């Protein structure tokens, strides 16, 4: 950027240039300040292009005066650059004249900031020129004369504005902030070099930056302007820097943190500069910690996220911290005790322990949160999102290193927390995605290293405490994600706290479910008793639980376990708030207006797009399962359809679709399933399957063909059952061959299905073995008989109510055995699961007692999964067959309590309908 200025200057003093190299660099930067400032004053954005050939535009007098003023300042700068004191003197006189005009126009008694700055600049330059005796000697006589007169004039002049100048020197920001606020965003160079705080503009400049480390690095170097110049001065001579000076400066900077007017970005730069001049490793570490926390401060709001390049820088700093920690194992990081004031004075050769304040885990978690937030905010359909996703290995490597370090130090609790963060980044990835990430990490680290080198080059020369890169910069991944997860979760189960363990367990379940290991993940879920405790956990864990449940449901479906799949998913769909429960978008409800507060909270919980579970697919699976269960169920209970409802949601949809006078061709998932249901109810399995198959969500399945095959078989089976339920009363006998042909099933399958129905007394018939026929018995109750049965049932309920009332009044009385849970007797799944035996719920309540007594809360002590495979706690109780399928309502704030008493249990009977 300096080059542009060089070309402008008429270079008559070439040999002198070399002497001023360093100074002039600074000057060049300063010039930009001024130009930028002048642009502000010029007020008209269209005019503020870099080009000097300005168009003539009619302007207000005030503007015109300002323009003149700034033009003069420009002239002065040019003059400074070539060390031309003669023209500088002229300009100085001119600017003083112009000042009078400007003051008149603005009618203020205060000189414009621009002027003051120019004075400051001049003074600095003058001092420099005077200090440089050698250069002075070389000057031409006229030049030297001008310099001397300038000195005197300036002295006299500056006395008038002494106050302002001092102010300007002390707080250049004051003189800048104004500029910054109104600065238009068009000028790329001045923005990046001068106003890193101006985040938006920086981001819009992404084309230039493209997140490249190297370039940001150089950008950073440029940023060490003004203030750092002072620091540079202070620390110009490496030999003069002592621990004390650095420490003092450090304290000073840290004290400025959070104060009004302290540029957050500037703070970071200054601290970064300090890390280079730090005297001892401990000191460097201390400063690095401050750098990182200062970087966290850069992001001003809770909902926004940290700028990506700052994030990356932050990760690099963290890695540097780890480098130091690995190199000097005697340095201990602790956030419990306030360390000694001069602890960091101890040098590299000090052998005792040095305590530094800091908390690696907290930092890492913050880094993770920022990453997560950025993914939430960035539009998932842009390239930016993809780019951002590619940063994941960077975080993983950091997490891995932190974890290793913590393990080495013996902070297992912290290590388990970090391990959880890693798990949470991996658990939702199918093997393909995992492989891709692995490959990316391998490729990427090559690039990163070269970028790294550049950065190193830039800071290289001045760093006193050089830290070699000890910790690996490249994440290592085991061959498959299962192995990685296994290692991590077993660590967490061993050392983690309750919440960490619960989350790890959920991730584990989720991951098993993705990998089609239904039984394993179900056992994990049941053994950990997460279902019982999850409503006491924080919302984000509940969301994770819901996610795991839905993934488990999908897994069950893929495995052909319709009943299980349905019980996993039904709760999610019972309230129609799937989006909210899975945190995949905000659902609008007609009845509850959300306060902005709730809405903001909800927005903050959202899952990033790449972690979403496809909602359409989920719905398709749920409805297909509901259809398979509900259609034969409805056929079996034609007389009192309301009694046994398996899926309320499905029933409602069916009613709605039946109410329509005209049914068009199916459009969405629901329409498809409804169309299939209509076909299935007539026993037309072929049409039902074709309609279901035409859903294009099935393409999301990895083993699409086999799953569809399974679905077809299930549809056939249920069609047969429905047929038998509906039409058995019309037949006296049915031949096996006929049935098999009708439903395209093998004889053995048909026989097995029908036998099952007979045993379960769903079908009153028996086989006639020699002829291969089903002979139906006429045991269908007459209307009168059916009503009589109904009556007895009602009477029983009445008696039970009486007993309960008694019990409530007098307590106990030998009726403990009577179940109390009848009133919400939605034992539908149970009823479906065990055809005849309506006693399911009783069993359930016993189960609970049992589980209570056996080993109490066994917690998640599935410990040692790696070492001793499958050793599980005794907390695992027999209720395995019961209760799977409870999604928790993450209810937003006030509505949480409202989600009624719907914590019903849903039986998951692993078996076939017995």
């Amino acid at each position, binding site marked *: 950027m300096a080059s542009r200025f060089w070309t402008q200057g008429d270079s008559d003093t070439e040999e002198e240039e070399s002497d001023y190299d360093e100074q002039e660099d600074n000057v060049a930067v300063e010039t930009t300040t001024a130009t930028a400032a002048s642009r502000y004053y010029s007020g008209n954005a269209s005019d503020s292009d870099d080009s000097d050939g300005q168009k003539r535009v009619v302007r207000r007098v005030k503007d015109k005066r300002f323009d003149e003023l700034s033009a003069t300042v420009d002239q002065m700068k040019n003059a400074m650059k070539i060390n031309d004191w003669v023209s500088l003197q002229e300009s100085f006189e001119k600017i003083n004249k112009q000042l009078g005009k400007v003051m008149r126009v603005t009618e203020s008694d205060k000189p414009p900031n621009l002027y003051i700055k120019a004075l400051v600049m001049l003074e600095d330059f003058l001092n420099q020129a005077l200090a440089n005796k050698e250069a002075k000697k070389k000057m031409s006589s006229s030049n030297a004369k001008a310099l001397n007169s300038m000195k005197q004039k300036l002295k006299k002049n500056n006395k008038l504005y002494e106050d302002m100048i001092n102010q300007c020197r002390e707080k250049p920001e004051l003189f800048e902030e104004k500029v910054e606020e109104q600065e238009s965003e068009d000028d790329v160079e001045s923005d990046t070099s001068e106003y890193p705080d101006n985040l938006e503009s920086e981001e819009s400049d992404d084309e230039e930056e493209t997140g490249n480390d190297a370039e940001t690095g150089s950008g950073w170097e440029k940023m060490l302007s003004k203030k750092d110049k002072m620091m540079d001065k202070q620390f110009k001579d490496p030999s003069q820097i002592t621990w004390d000076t650095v420490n003092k400066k450090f304290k000073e900077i840290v004290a400025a943190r959070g104060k009004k007017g302290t540029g957050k970005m500037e703070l970071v730069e200054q601290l970064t500069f300090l890390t280079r001049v730090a005297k001892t490793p401990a000191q460097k570490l201390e400063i690095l910690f401050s750098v990182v926390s200062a970087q966290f401060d850069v992001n001003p709001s809770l909902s926004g996220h940290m700028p990506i390049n700052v994030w990356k820088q932050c990760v690099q700093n963290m890695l540097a911290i780890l480098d130091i920690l690995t190199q000097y194992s005697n340095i201990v990081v602790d956030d419990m005790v306030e360390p000694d004031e001069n602890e960091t004075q101890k040098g590299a050769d000090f052998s005792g322990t040095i305590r530094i304040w800091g908390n690696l885990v907290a930092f890492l978690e913050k880094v993770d949160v920022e990453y997560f937030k950025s993914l939430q905010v960035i539009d998932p359909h842009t390239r930016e999102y993809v780019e951002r996703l590619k940063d994941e290995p960077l975080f993983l490597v950091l997490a891995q290193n932190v974890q290793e370090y913590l393990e080495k130090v013996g902070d297992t609790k912290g290590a388990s927390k970090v391990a959880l963060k890693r798990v949470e980044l991996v658990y939702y990835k199918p093997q393909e995605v995992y492989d891709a990430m692995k490959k990316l990490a391998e490729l990427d680290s090559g690039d990163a290293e070269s970028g790294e080198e550049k950065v190193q080059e830039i800071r290289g020369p001045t760093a006193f405490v050089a830290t070699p890169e000890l910790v690996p910069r490249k994440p290592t991944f085991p061959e498959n994600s299962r192995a990685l997860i296994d290692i991590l979760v077993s660590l967490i189960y061993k050392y983690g706290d309750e919440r960490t363990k619960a989350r790890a367990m959920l991730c584990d379940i989720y991951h098993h479910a993705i990998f089609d290991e239904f039984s394993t993940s179900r056992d994990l879920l049941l*053994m950990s008793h997460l279902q019982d405790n999850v409503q006491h956990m924080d919302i984000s864990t509940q969301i994770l639980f819901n996610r795991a449940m839905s993934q488990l449901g999908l897994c069950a479906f893929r495995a052909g376990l319709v009943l299980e799949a349905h019980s996993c998913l039904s709760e999610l769909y019972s309230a129609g708030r799937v989006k909210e429960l899975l945190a995949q978008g905000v659902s609008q409800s007609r009845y509850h207006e959300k306060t902005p507060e709730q809405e903001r909270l909800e927005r903050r919980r959202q899952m990033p797009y790449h972690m979403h579970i496809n909602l359409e697919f989920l719905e398709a699976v749920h409805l297909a399962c509901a259809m398979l269960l509900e259609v034969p169920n409805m056929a079996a209970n034609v007389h009192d359809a309301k009694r046994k409802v398996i899926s309320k949601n499905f029933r409602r949809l069916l009613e709605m679709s039946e109410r329509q006078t005209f049914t068009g061709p199916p459009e969405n998932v629901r329409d498809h399933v409804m169309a299939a249901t209509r076909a299935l109810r007539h026993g037309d399995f072929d049409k039902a399957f074709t309609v279901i198959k035409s859903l294009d969500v099935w393409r999301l399945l990895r083993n699409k063909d086999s799953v569809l095959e399974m679905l077809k078989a299930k549809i056939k089976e249920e069609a047969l059952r429905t047929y038998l339920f509906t039409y058995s009363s019309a037949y006296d006998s049915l031949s096996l061959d006929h049935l098999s042909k009708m439903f395209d099933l093998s004889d053995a399958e048909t026989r097995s299905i029908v036998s099952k129905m*007979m045993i379960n007394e769903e079908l009153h018939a028996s086989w006639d073995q020699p002829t291969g026929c089903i002979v139906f018995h006429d045991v269908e109750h007459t209307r009168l008989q059916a009503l009589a*049965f109904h009556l007895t049932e009602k009477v029983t309920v009445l008696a039970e109510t009486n007993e309960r009332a008694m019990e409530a009044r*007098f307590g106990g009385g030998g009726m403990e055995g009577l179940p109390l849970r009848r009133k919400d007797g939605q034992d539908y799944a149970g009823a479906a699961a065990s055809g005849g035996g309506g006693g399911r719920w009783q069993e359930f309540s016993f189960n609970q007692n049992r589980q209570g007594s056996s080993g109490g809360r066994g917690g998640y002590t599935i410990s040692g999964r790696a070492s001793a495979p499958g050793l*599980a706690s005794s907390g695992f109780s027999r209720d395995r067959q019961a209760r799977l399928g409870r999604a928790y309502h993450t209810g937003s704030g006030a509505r949480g309590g409202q989600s009624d008493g719907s914590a019903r249990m849903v039986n998951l009977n692993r078996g*076939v309908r017995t």
Partner: protein
Amino acid sequence: MASKYDLTPRIAPNLDRHLVFPLLEFLQERGLYPEEDILKAKIELLNHTNMVDYAMDIHKSLYHSDDVPQDMIDRRAEVVGRLKALEDGAAPLIGFLQNPNAVQELRADKQYNLQMLNDRYQIGPEQIDALYDYAKFQFECGNYSGAADYLYQYRALCTNSDKSLSALWGKLAAEVLMQNWDIALEELNRLKEIIDSKNFSSPLNQVQSRIWLMHWSLFIFFNHDNGRTQIIDLFNQDKYLNAIQTNAPHLLRYLATAFIVNKRRRPQFKEFIKVIQQEQYSHEDPITEFLACIYVNYDFDGAQKKMKECEEVILNDPFLGKRIEEGNFTTVPLRDEFLENARLFIFETYCRIHQRINMGVLADKLNLNYEEAERWIVNLIRTSKLEAKIDSNLGTIIMEPSYTNVYEQLIDHTKALSTRTYKIVHQLLENAPGQTAR
């Protein structure tokens, strides 16, 4: 093929070294594996025990030579030396115990006994601990009866509950190895009580102890007369069933077998079928699969095939395939019993869903020939286990449909109500004055 269902590798880790011997003996007899492998396994096993002489013998027969490796000889010397040392350590107490007069002085009060021993015979805690070590060493040497005696006496005197527990384990092992099934059963129950009541440091340990206990108990249950009902009592308890499901699904085989040969266990049996269904994925076993075929899939052809496999499995299982020599031919009682009951299971279920069955087909399904089948069925009908008639002209069995009358059902449903209501009213009247009086 036959070794596919051999559970020895899965059972052995849960047994004491010495208890594995009978299993290996059995395998050797059956010839499932090459003889050499088994002998090698035996030496491996013996290396960590003190039965050096035995190991030497095996070594000789394995390599067909009279040379014995030097380390075995060294080990023998070491063992003998250590035995002497331990014997000396425990001598005072053993001397005391062998003196019947002195033993008479012992009373039921443990504290008193300890005090008395200490005062009068100068036998302190060290000597008592020495007795434990000595007993353990005896056990390691294969002197089970001695070990059992000493351990019994040790338990009477010891105060350390942990050591007492391991002494009990030792005693159990010794009794099992001596085939004193009655005493072993007593010890087993004692151990079970301790395991259930004791506070273990972690639930994991408790589960592990239970699993051990179940494995060890297999010896007893399949040899004791009453064992087959007791195995159900033990294994089918919730805690134990959980342990099986989590850690040792192979034990389901034994429970399943016990259920099959025990007819009177219907209610639990239904529950058990559910467990089998759940565990199908984790463990493959013909016997459990047989049950799954009949009660889950209603696949009678499959069940029939499985039955044959089951026979094989039973013959090759060290616990199930116990032989009894009668005269000059051997029988495996459990096999016959199993097959008989399995047949009954198939037939029962089959009959429930049929109204007419061809005898020929049935005979086929039951692995019987026609006459046998007919005799068998006639027997069932005569003992009124089956309500059916044989149509010998057509060669079919005709089931009598048995449906409860609708009216009977209604009466059933309502019968209890009146008594219940009466009870309530009674209670109400009883309580009401009390209420007002208060």
